[in-house]
């Protein structure tokens, strides 16, 4: 990404919770950096400056998405670095965090280099990678975490692959702590999940779908928290789905453990009820749970027990969802809807603007340990400009991701991304 010429954004409502700022300001960008923020900035001295009139618009730091599968390398028929970073760049998302379950797995430096090479040539947004916690994600041997960190990985994770051997997990946490690496965990006890595809409850019983109990998530969190308490590692639990999990995380945080959490945005809207018509677009893992779980997840974001909201982006080709429900591939293409859905929570008075922006920007930046997610002078100019009063309806033709698999088709939204600026470059 080349730094473009200067941009002056006039009179937008700047929401930058990291700097406790929510006010109408001008913002001046040059050489990829934020140069000035003030009540009024004149551009008289330079006519090459591109001016954007942002009256009535919201300006916020670019979104940092904690979990987005780009499908490259390995599953390029679903999506590519190019297609998904373009989609991100149209959706206000300026940094994507890629979990290590690519093919090949990100368990050695060469794969990180491969992805970085792809980003350099075809990337339209920033990408950071998580390295594999264990070799090939098999949960048996530790990966070369120090080398992965040196190659640029911002943390380690076993992605959706569970580590059933608790001794391996203990050593991975100890080793990660020795190298000051955050461990990202998607909690799932595979014996309890038992190849299920829906929340174990009344709806799955009625539809005859193999169920996944919420204990499949919370037993792993309980186990892992005991190790965190003993080792002092820094752990992030991602894609939580159940009320029980929230209770455990909250308790751990109250005890002073270094534990953070995120939730996928679709978990804040949909429940098991949405599976009633065998809608395969609602096949996600962890599964949509009960209304009560959804409401407690929402409260947890508002109270800060869950710090971040991510897309859990999993683009698929059309065929992946054209089977009977249990045979379809799980996952939702989420980049296009991350921002409009999150701001719907503001409209519904679940979050205020500052909370919503924090959960999408400064909170995930802090979890990843990267210097982003704020609009400070001298910071990299990654930001999104939003029209908060634009009614629109999601249709596949409007989606920029290569994957059109979403249960939100036909939903109405009030907030729309007008511009994304990445490293000072205006995305057209």
């Amino acid at each position, binding site marked *: 990404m080349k730094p473009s010429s200067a941009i002056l954004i006039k009179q937008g409502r700047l929401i930058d919770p990291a700097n406790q700022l929510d006010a109408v300001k001008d913002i001046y960008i040059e050489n990829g950096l934020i140069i000035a923020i003030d009540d009024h900035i004149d551009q008289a001295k330079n006519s090459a400056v591109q001016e954007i009139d942002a009256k009535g618009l919201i300006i916020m730091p670019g979104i940092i998405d904690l979990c987005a599968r780009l499908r490259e390398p390995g599953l390029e028929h679903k999506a590519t670095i190019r297609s998904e970073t373009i989609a991100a760049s149209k959706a206000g998302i300026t940094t994507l965090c890629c979990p290590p379950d690519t093919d090949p797995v990100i368990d050695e430096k060469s794969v990180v280099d491969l992805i970085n090479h792809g980003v350099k040539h075809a990337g339209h947004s920033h990408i950071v990678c998580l390295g594999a916690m264990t070799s090939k994600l098999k949960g048996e041997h530790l990966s070369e975490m120090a080398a992965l960190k040196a190659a640029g990985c911002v943390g380690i994770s076993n992605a959706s692959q569970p580590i059933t051997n608790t001794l391996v997990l203990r050593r991975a946490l100890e080793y990660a702590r020795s190298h000051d690496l955050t461990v990202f965990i998607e909690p799932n006890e595979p014996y309890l999940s038992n190849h299920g595809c829906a929340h174990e409850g*009344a709806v799955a*019983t009625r539809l*005859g779908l193999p*169920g996944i109990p919420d204990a499949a998530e919370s037993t792993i969190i309980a186990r892992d928290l005991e190790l965190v308490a003993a080792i002092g590692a820094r752990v992030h639990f991602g894609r939580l789905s159940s009320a029980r999990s929230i209770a455990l995380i909250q308790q751990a945080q109250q005890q002073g453990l270094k534990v953070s959490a995120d939730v996928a945005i679709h978990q804040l809207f949909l429940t098991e009820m949405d*599976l009633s*018509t065998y809608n395969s677009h609602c096949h996600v893992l962890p599964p949509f749970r009960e209304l009560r779980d959804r409401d407690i997840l929402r409260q947890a974001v508002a109270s800060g027990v869950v710090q971040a909201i991510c897309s859990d982006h999993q683009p698929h080709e059309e065929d992946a969802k054209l*089977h*009977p429900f*249990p045979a379809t591939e799980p996952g939702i293409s989420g980049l296009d809807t991350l921002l409009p859905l999150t701001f719907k929570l503001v409209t519904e008075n679940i979050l205020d603007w500052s909370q919503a922006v924090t959960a999408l920007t400064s909170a995930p930046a802090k979890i990843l340990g990267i210097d982003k997610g704020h609009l400070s002078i001298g910071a990299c100019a990654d930001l999104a400009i939003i029209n908060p009063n634009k009614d629109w309806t999601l249709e596949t033709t409007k989606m920029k991701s290569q994957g059109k698999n979403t249960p939100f088709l036909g939903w109405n939204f009030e907030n729309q991304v007008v511009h994304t600026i990445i490293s000072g470059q205006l995305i057209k």
Partner: protein
Amino acid sequence: MVNKNARATNPLLGQDHWNIQLDENGRLKHFLTIEGLGSEILTEILDTAENFTGVNNRTVKKVPLLRGKTITNLFFEASTRTRTTFELAAKRLSADVLNINISTSATSKGESLLDTLYNLQAMQTDMFVIRHQDSGAAHFAARHVAPHISVLNAGDGRHAHPTQAMLDLLTIRQNKGHDFSALRVAIVGDILHSRVARSQIHALNTLNTGEIRVVAPRTLLPANIEKLGVKVHYNLQQGIQDADVIIMLRLQKERMQGAMLPSELEYYQQYGLTSQTLKYAKPDAIVMHPGPINRGVEIESCVADGEQSVILDQVSNGIAVRMAIMSMTLGTSAQQTGDEK
């Protein structure tokens, strides 16, 4: 009478889950699940089936109702009884029948269900009878086939086996009369994996059955089963106490793996229906089983073959019920084509 309004007030019934079963006139178009079908339609099926039992007892067991129609039996799971009775039903209605056993056919070569359906559709099939290992497969098929084609669910995963439920209702009605509200029905065994039990529960509730009980250890019961409108019993004697109808379910051998149950012996001792345990039910209780039965696992031989057993009546009724449903669904579409012309 907890069950009376179980269906009407059940908030778990999704909106258009079943509506694709009915055409714009409210007539049966597909037969995918009992859910969403009113007691009128269920009664119509039973009455029509009752008429067809006459045909089945004649020397010439054939009526020309579906002459010229092609019915494709598409079985992705092994089946003897269900497939055979569907085939006989179609033949007695004078339809042409195509039997396709997919476990030895296309999908082992990697063809998707959708491609299989489209290919057979191109051969001018009028009806698919589908059995598939995945819950929701029949709904999936009904959503994707051409509008003139009817889909009959012959069992999808753990979800539904609605023709089995209808033949069970017919058998109960023949033995216990038309008023289901006076009946106490106990369904015993592996409810968790049973599409038969789910369809029976919906069907019995739709006909206002007085009390429906499910009897099994917790490992064989799905979560929140009571929300379907049943009472849960862990104890066989209590579960069949004063029952009018006992429906025993088949216990698959593979349930002994995966820690569902300790052993066949213990299951038989706790949940097997024997001449001793049968005494807890009403003296005139009938014993049913969707088959195939495991003698000495869920049911004692002398009970399966005993006076109270109506297991073979169920099999005969299977043909009549399937004839009724086939003629009702295809009759509807035949009428529509006539109107267009």
